[in-house]
């Protein structure tokens, strides 16, 4: 077993770190946070710098981790224009890939994934948005809630109900819905606690006509496609958590040092640092282990959910402790932003409770841990 990463990844890590240090200035981070502005210019720069290399998922993971260690909100904003792309990549027709993936992969378009509804996000099979086949198109009615890139994306992978099966998750299908389709409306949501550089919106679908060929894969398989997607994307959420934990820890150490040698040499302060750092390393090992299964085409959903849940919890733990050990210094500026940003990690793409249910149910089925 070798825990050292290939040199090419260390080089990539350095490249991303240098990019973030240069481009993610405190001024931009603060402006986007207070003004709830999407950093379009940064998105373009990140794309041009080739930070999201889809030919190598390890590089994507490292990119997300490193960018989020400088600022989670900006890091997520510039790495989610591709959100939902894996659904198209794995299950979309060549036509859909060409029409909707190519522009995203060439930096010309932004996409999103629309699953959650006002009535619920954890219970994916309980969604109410309906798609009815009428001749050569589907007609979609319903609404989606908290959709990242909701008011800036060109198109979405969207989950809707196409039939009323006894088992609710059997009647769902995925579609590509363009934001310019008639009857589609996005209302930007303002006033998030954190990740305020990311765009979030409520989507309304009022008799939206979607061409039949925009159905992704087979009808009735939507739930399965979305779960497959989550088993990939949760690794990247775990990477967001690693970045936040690391960033908060390192920042609080430097703030604590500035509070004087006599402060940072106190054992109680040092123990907090040790605890944060140890949890971070544990979260990183778990995330990289889950990633190595996935990236070798042998996904392990139990490990993936463990990584997502634990890395998110570690991020929240580290930001809270960072604020606690730095007292009045921590509740203003960069560290308080880290804390506000971190909490979303325990909610999006499966709450911590949902992850724990997945872990336990899989383990019960499999007869325990191996």
């Amino acid at each position, binding site marked *: 077993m070798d825990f050292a990463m290939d040199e090419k990844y260390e080089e990539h890590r350095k490249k991303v770190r240098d990019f973030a240090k240069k481009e993610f200035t405190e001024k931009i981070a603060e402006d986007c946070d207070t003004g709830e502005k999407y950093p379009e210019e940064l998105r373009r720069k990140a794309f041009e710098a080739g930070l999201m290399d889809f030919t190598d998922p390890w590089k994507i993971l490292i990119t997300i981790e490193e960018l989020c260690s400088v600022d989670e909100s900006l890091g997520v904003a510039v790495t989610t224009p591709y959100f939902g792309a894996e659904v198209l990549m794995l299950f979309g027709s060549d036509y859909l890939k060409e029409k909707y993936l190519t522009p995203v992969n060439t930096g010309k378009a932004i996409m999103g994934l629309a699953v959650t509804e006002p009535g619920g996000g*954890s219970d994916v099979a309980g969604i109410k948005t309906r798609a009815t086949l009428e001749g050569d198109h589907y007609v979609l009615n319903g609404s989606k809630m908290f959709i990242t890139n909701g008011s800036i994306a060109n198109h979405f992978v969207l989950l809707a109900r196409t039939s009323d099966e006894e088992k609710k998750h059997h009647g769902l299908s995925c579609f590509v819905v363009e934001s310019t389709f008639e009857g589609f409306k996005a209302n930007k949501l303002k006033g*998030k606690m954190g990740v305020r550089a990311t765009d979030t919106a409520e989507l309304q679908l009022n008799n939206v006509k979607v061409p039949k060929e925009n159905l992704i894969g087979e009808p009735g398989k939507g739930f399965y496609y979305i779960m497959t997607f989550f088993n990939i994307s949760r690794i990247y959420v775990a990477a967001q958590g690693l970045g936040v934990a690391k960033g908060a820890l390192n920042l609080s150490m430097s703030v604590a040092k500035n509070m004087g040698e006599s402060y940072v040499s106190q054992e109680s302060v040092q123990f907090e640092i040790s605890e944060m750092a140890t949890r971070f390393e544990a979260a990183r090992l778990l995330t990289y282990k889950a990633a190595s299964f996935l990236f070798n085409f042998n996904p392990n959903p139990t490990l993936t959910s463990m990584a997502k849940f634990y890395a998110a919890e570690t991020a929240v733990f580290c930001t809270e402790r960072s*604020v606690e*050990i730095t007292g009045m210094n921590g509740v203003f500026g960069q560290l308080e932003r880290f*804390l506000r940003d971190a909490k979303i990690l325990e909610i999006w793409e499966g709450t911590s409770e949902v992850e724990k249910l997945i872990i336990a149910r899989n383990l019960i089925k499999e007869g325990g841990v191996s």
Partner: protein
Amino acid sequence: MREEVQLIKESAREFLLKEVAGREVSIDRNGLDPGLLSRVRDQGFMTAVIPQEDGGSGLDRDSYLVVLNEMAKYSGSLAAAIFMFNSIEYPLIRETGSKSLLNEFVSSAGQIALDCRLFSYGGSGSAGDLYMFPDSRVVATLQNDVIRIYRKESENPEVVSQLGFRGIRFGHLHGPFGEEVGSFSGSGKFISGLMERTSEEIASIVLGISSTALAKAVEYSKVRYAFGSPLKAFQPIAFPLAMRMAQLSILENFVFSGSEKSRLELIGEREISLDFARDTTKLALQTHGGYGYIEDFGVEMLYRDALFAGSFFWPRSEHMRSMATALYEDEAGSI
């Protein structure tokens, strides 16, 4: 609870229902407006525990704690403003021995900009020029062992982003200041005294915040459904909420008991309440799922306020040192 304390609690509740209920998020976003603050003053809450001979309302300590607790149930910022006025600024002005300054201060109930070095670790001034209540008329600064009060003449400073209690503003303020109107030496003793004396107040505030967080989470878990059942049906929701409600009740019974407390208990209740508030408000946010992350729902604010209160005002290791010293009745926990 004694009858007069109960009466104060009811009058605070009545005031809050009339003046603050429904405006909690707006106060957090836009600040405590002068109109509201003047009504808080008119009702005597702003000068709650300041003795009548100094122009205050002269409430006893138990009543004061209950006022802070009630205020915090609706607005952590309002509770914090009252706390700052009564528990930090008033003692500071009184210590100067200037009767005229005290009169002016209490009658205007205006606030003081405070040099952050008063509170930072070892008085090292690590927060640099960070001052609180930037639109106040006087400034208290710490130089060596002397606290000096000046008239503030400089422009109101730029407000900085802050985690919690956003209804009261914090900002950077640069000298030079105007006329010196009072001073006293021996700041070290004064400040460590403040740290201990304010433990109960902080506990009262964060328990108020926690109480609202729990009430919101319990209500939400009755009406929100997932997988065909109300959230309250799920053990990971119902069990921790029930446990925390029990803990809150036990903590409240202790903090508001009005009984004699040891020094260790006095300082300890702050630390225990802060941990409780941090975890309880976080649980309430989590129970609300995505909605908990949106300001309009007024839940994330409770988490931010609870965490911010933990930094009021010294790092935790300072408070723990006081606790350890109380335990050993001797200097302890210095390494």
